[in-house]
């Protein structure tokens, strides 16, 4: 299942980006490597926390869940089942919706672009695209299997 492999790899990269931003927010890193300095503007904004937790924390959790689901989906017991593909599609769809909201805030409310946030947005978009292709492929496989019976 090449799709799940691709999602696992992308999720791992996203997890590393989100972890970097989260640790910076927690104060474990000195100056954020951003280039323009707008990362700090975004991270300091009123929208940088939700329910008392840094936004990056939700990124860490989200990417971790995607990584685990994609890895589970690669195990022999699950590799031919459609469940992991559906779960990845739903999870990445939710992640993409959340990211679109955050990107809207950056563009029209905070008016600053955090490059790491844009990298994360590109990753979740790529995951969603791959998850959609993977789900459609799984659906076709399942239909073909039923037809053979």
């Amino acid at each position, binding site marked *: *299942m090449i799709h799940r*492999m691709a999602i*696992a*790899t992308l999720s*791992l*990269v996203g997890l*590393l980006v989100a*972890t*970097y931003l989260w*640790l*910076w*927010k*927690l*104060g*474990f*890193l*000195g*100056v954020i*490597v951003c280039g*323009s*300095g707008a990362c*700090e503007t975004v*991270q*300091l*904004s*009123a929208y940088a926390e939700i329910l008392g937790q840094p936004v990056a924390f939700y990124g860490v959790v989200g990417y971790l869940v995607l990584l685990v689901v994609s890895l589970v989906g*690669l195990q022999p017991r699950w*590799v031919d089942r459609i469940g992991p593909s559906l779960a990845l599609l739903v999870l990445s769809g939710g992640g993409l919706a959340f990211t679109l909201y955050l990107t809207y805030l950056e563009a029209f409310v905070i008016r600053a672009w955090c490059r790491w946030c844009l990298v994360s947005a590109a990753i979740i978009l790529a995951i969603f695209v791959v998850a959609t292709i993977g789900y459609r492929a799984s659906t076709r496989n399942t239909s073909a299997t039923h037809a053979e019976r």
Partner: protein
Amino acid sequence: MARSVMKMFYLALGAVALIGGAAIWMARGGSGGSEGVTSVSSAALASVGEYEGYVEGSDSAPVEVVEFADFQCPACARFTILSGSDIRTGLVERGLARWRFHDFPLPNHQHAIPAHHAAACADEQGQFWAMHDQLFFNQGRWARDSRPTRRFREYAQAIGLDVDRFEACMESDRYRARIEAGKNEAVALGINSTPSFLIGDIVVAGALPYDSIKTLVEKAAARAAR
């Protein structure tokens, strides 16, 4: 799927995790121990004395810690909020270390210089550390305010300053050159991130937990006693 393909995949995934993890570890600036600690030449150390900064603690303390910080830096605020109280009671008040705050406003923080200026104006009335705490504990509010000086006025009032005198000081902008000089001195010393600490003859970067600061102070005291 072929077992060899899966093996290659897991190896590649492990390599990505390892490289990414190492990159984050290196970015942390040695906040847990001796990593990220660099020695400073005696010539460079001699130049630090030219900028006095703000001092808290006894002149007879065996170790001096110079904190290079930016009032608008989130990591600096987190450091003060999480470790400031322990440092005061555990090191400064016990006479184990003298703490020196060194202005280092970063260029990408648009309100940093006014904030450092507010602290300098509070110092005129003997309340630098009270303003220092106000600025760090309320950083989330003033840092995103389009007119942060009105917030600084509130903090001046809260800590009991003569507000008219404080405002006159802010309008005069008389400490800007000194703050800039302090920043330039830090850059000359090789400091490139905030918060950074000069403890004895070593520089360590990152929002260190209290225990790490305490350990480094004890090591510096031991070196000084030799």
